[in-house]
């Protein structure tokens, strides 16, 4: 549980510079709907996450990630690999 909340906090920290609307970020916050990110913002954010964790989030996987909780799961899995 601690691991998960640590991962959540770390990703939340990466989300904040892109959170122009000041939306409250929780597990169910969606990138397209709540944060209103366009494809360019998504690209910049994904690059940040990839570089921070030294992972690759393929576009195939990105298509399946709609909210912050799903991102936490995905990054946890990719970092463990």
């Amino acid at each position, binding site marked *: 549980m601690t691991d998960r909340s640590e991962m959540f906090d770390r990703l939340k920290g990466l989300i904040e510079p892109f959170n122009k609307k000041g939306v409250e970020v929780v597990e169910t916050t969606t990138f397209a709907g709540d944060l209103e990110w*366009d*494809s*360019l913002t998504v*690209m910049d954010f994904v*690059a940040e996450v*990839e*570089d921070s964790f*030294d*992972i*690759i989030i*393929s*576009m*195939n996987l990105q298509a399946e990630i709609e909210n912050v909780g799903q991102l936490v799961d995905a990054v946890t899995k990719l970092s463990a690999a």
Partner: protein
Amino acid sequence: MTDLFSKFDALIAQREGLLATGVKDPFSLVMEEVKSPTVAVVNGKETILLGTYNYMGMTFDDDVIAAGKKALDEFGAGTTGSRVLNGTFQGHKECEDALKEFYGMDHAMVFSTGYQANLGIISTIAGKGDYIILDIDSHASIYDGCKMGDAEIVAFRHNDVEALEKRLKRLPADAGKLVVLEGVYSMLGDVAPLKEMIRVSKEAGAMVLVDEAHSMGFIGENGRGVAEEQGVLDDVDFVIGTFSKSVGTVGGFCVSNHPKFEIMRLVCRPYVFTASLPPAVVACSAASIRKLMHNKNKRAHLWENSKNLHQGLRDLGFQLGTPNAQSAIIAVVMPDLEKGAAMWAALLENGLYVNLARPPATPAGMTLLRCSLCAEHSSEQVADILNRFERAGKAVGII
């Protein structure tokens, strides 16, 4: 019943909003007469064409037209068949021979469009478990090729060598990798640092595909494109190109030195499951490709046109997509879609046609007036074009 068209409502509303401001629809223009590679009649008015991909002005070349007429007479209007069944005529082979000679490569495969060439090659060579690493600003046909195949897709920031290298290093060492690049990116007309990108790709054990659609015939000592210009054509595994730009017809191709390349003719679905190009088209294309091999003077004049237009537009105060002229495409950045459409219409009023480009085709949500020059534009026409830009720009309030 759910109306399947409701997903287009936002776009329909945006379009209606734009037309309500009184501008002509920029996406339903008709060329009533085409007088030359650089002049057409639009809305009854003689108009200079500055938004075609007719870089080398081959559409009205006498030899090209004569070859097409002869093929039409001798081989008929169409092939009514696939390349792998009854649709490969003598002309298709001659066209592929011309391409092999043009690029100095062992294999050439002609598709019915450039879109299908990317769709087919990319989706077929990168399969399940393989990786495609592509520039985020890649053309729609590249993205669609990725979507059609089963590979994992990894994007990197536009023209960023370091971002490409980092991603390549994170991928499994033994996985199949295809790096997809373009020589000239068609929206801004900027050129890729292919030399560095291909070096890091090869170091990571990746194969490299370069789409040279917008550079063929014009960039490089022999007009083979940006990879030739940067001295790295030998390291490119697959060159994708099109006939609908410098060649002046329609069709697409892939050339390669891969020893097993010919198997693609049997496994590449967008090659197999469609009718081949009509005899007149391949005959025109072959004649045009052969002429493009020896076109140094025309290439030099096109560069001169491109540099003059870039300098002139900058001097007038327009914001441009590149700091210098890097290709035959000069992109003028508009403040927004509404102003862009107004400027586009004002230019047309002044007898000048350019491309209006907008998201999602454009990067960074930009609205662009994209100018593409032709080797057949005279220096006087370029001066005339600048005058028309000045008049329209002042009328719309952009400069």
